[in-house]
């Protein structure tokens, strides 16, 4: 199993600013995944973060908007840049061993 500590749990941010979300895993994992869950919607993959290489982004998500760091095998950050109200969502990180484990999620509100 894996335990993921994600923070912050929630934040209210002004438009035009940036927020960095952190995920710490209690074991070493090769890949970490970042998802967005818009209000009332399902989870959509933003990107896959591998240690030592650039993240791989899904269609509709770009590095300038969602830069990701993966400095080691237990830690990753996702930054939501130049935020607008449309970025208000829950952001979750995930790792996979025999199943997918998720962080507690970050509820972001942009005003």
């Amino acid at each position, binding site marked *: 199993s894996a335990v993921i500590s994600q923070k912050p749990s929630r934040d209210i941010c002004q438009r035009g600013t940036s927020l960095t979300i952190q995920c710490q895993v209690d074991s070493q994992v090769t890949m970490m*995944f970042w998802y967005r869950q818009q209000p009332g919607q399902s989870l959509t993959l933003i990107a896959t973060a591998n240690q030592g290489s650039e993240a791989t982004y899904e269609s509709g998500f770009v590095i300038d908007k969602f830069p990701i760091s993966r400095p080691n095998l237990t830690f990753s950050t996702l930054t939501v840049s130049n935020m607008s109200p449309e970025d208000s969502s829950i952001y979750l990180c995930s790792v*996979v061993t025999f*199943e997918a484990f998720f962080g*507690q999620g970050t509820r972001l509100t942009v005003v």
Partner: protein
Amino acid sequence: AQTVTQSQPEMSVQEAETVTLSCTYDTSENNYYLFWYKQPPSRQMILVIRQEAYKQQNATENRFSVNFQKAAKSFSLKISDSQLGDTAMYFCAFMGGSQGNLIFGKGTKLSVKP
């Protein structure tokens, strides 16, 4: 590309009754995994049950069981003896054998009524 479809946006069930949530998926892969996740208002994603595609036997976890029909690409979740704490969003998810990310359905909001 793989897709996951949950055709029931909302369902309700009386406490102690049984309810079945539907899920269908589409893939050309032969080796994959299927999951049901529960998301209560706390927004934590909680694994309910997992099924490996190569296993013919349906997975069960206490009150939760699945009906996995590989040929039909169907993966329904049955909740027996429903409890108030089962009230949550339920997401069906697919993971390819060579990948680590999940593809989620749109979810079913389940309400258990006393």
